[in-house]
């Protein structure tokens, strides 16, 4: 078996490795449909629970929508994160990734990017459904931007913490406990920005919150990027 047309570089290119991981996760999801469907069903259930738990008449509802949306996203997100890392751990695939001559951070960015895409997809489905359920149009480019920015910070730290949680005995309950206290800055900024958008405030007023989201995203992503090695290597 003479692999004449095969070229081995010193280390597989960072972007190639990263996109290989993203592509792999996307295809696996298209086949298995486990992640997105679980997150989606869970999100809808949470919305229904909120409907009965809170008195959502039209007046109070507009004040609460941002909060409900982000609570939903926060909780559903942990399902996705858990599942995404569990797949690697259970079949020993994480070892497969670590055996490859690639930068560990390429693996981190690949997983995070895939998780981010899944979260945004779920949000894209939840928004119209919420709009239908409450007969109010909440879809807008500004809100989508907030969701994209907020999910990035969430997923940046979430992927890191999920990699740790999945290696612990108390795997399932541990991720939310680890994630929620440290994700609060992102959550606060995202909720305030969303509430402002849904209540029709001019975007200039919300500038602070958008800036905060971007700052948080940068900080959290950099930190996770720097320590990821320690979490997967032995």
């Amino acid at each position: 078996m003479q692999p004449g047309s095969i070229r081995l570089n010193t280390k597989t290119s960072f972007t190639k490795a990263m996109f290989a991981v993203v592509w792999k996760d996307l295809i696996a999801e298209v086949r298995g449909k486990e992640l997105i469907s679980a997150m989606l069903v869970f999100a809808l259930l949470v919305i229904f629970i909120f409907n009965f738990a809170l008195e959502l008449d039209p007046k109070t509802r507009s004040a609460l929508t941002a909060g409900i949306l982000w609570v939903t996203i926060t909780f559903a997100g942990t399902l996705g994160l858990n599942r995404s890392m569990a797949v690697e751990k259970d079949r020993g695939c994480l070892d497969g990734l670590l055996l490859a001559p690639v930068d560990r951070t390429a693996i981190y960015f690949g997983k995070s990017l895939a998780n981010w895409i899944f979260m945004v997809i779920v949000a894209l489905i939840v928004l119209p459904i919420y709009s239908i359920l409450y007969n109010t149009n909440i879809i807008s480019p500004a809100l989508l931007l907030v969701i994209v920015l907020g999910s990035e910070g969430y997923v940046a730290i979430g992927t890191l913490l999920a990699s740790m949680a999945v290696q612990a005995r108390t795997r399932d309950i541990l991720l939310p406990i680890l994630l929620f206290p440290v994700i609060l800055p992102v959550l606060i900024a995202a909720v305030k920005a969303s509430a402002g958008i849904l209540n029709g405030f001019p975007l200039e007023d919300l500038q602070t919150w958008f800036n905060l989201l971007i700052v948080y995203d940068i900080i959290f992503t950099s930190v996770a990027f720097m320590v990821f090695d320690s979490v997967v290597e032995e």
Partner: protein
Amino acid sequence: MTVIIEVKNLVKRFGHKQVLRKLNFSVQQGEFVALLGSNGAGKTTLLRILSSLSKPNYGEIRISGFFLPGQAAEVRKKLGVVSHLPLLYGDLSAEENLRFYSRLYGLSNFQSHIEEILSLVGLLKRKKDLVRTFSRGMQQRLAIGRAILHDPEVLLLDEPHTGLDQEAANMLDRLLQQIASKGRTVVMTSHDFPRVATLATRFDVLAKGMIQSSKLAKDLPQHGLLAYYQSIVDEIDATREHKIEH
């Protein structure tokens, strides 16, 4: 003959438990070494360290001229690893799994190469089928295919026959013989003495954190492997009892 794997004074501790104690191990190119030992003796630990998945506490390791753990990235290109977990994605097809790993290993123009490998492991007809529909035997064969994608010099196998029925295990053996005959170096841990006796060129016994004994296949009588192993184990037990008495 060149030495491809060289391990000197390897020490590995888990908490307070010392699993490998100043272990010395050396393999020449083209050898097929069977690593024998009881459960918990440290075979998997040794293999994990050789495969760069685990870092030793102390010791010198060279594989194909590169040091571990310092030059791990270079070493990884030369290694193919098969463990008892499949390291395959159930939701992807056989072909897609190999494509993914080809990308990870920086290979290009790999489509025909993948088909060659699938044909070698006898799974070409199932290339579009999802791996979760495969039997364990098929998954192991695909796992070996994955391991040799980048044409590694060294193959590390950790109890690859686990969970296979006779027929699947026989197919696996034929595959291993074929692969090993191309000048590759193989280190395999196993409990399955009859199988290992037909495959390996050398038998090392790992016990009490060290390689206690090493014997070439040609120096062993036919069907003599079990007796050889038993004698080593008995010797170790005897020395331990001797120590306790005193």
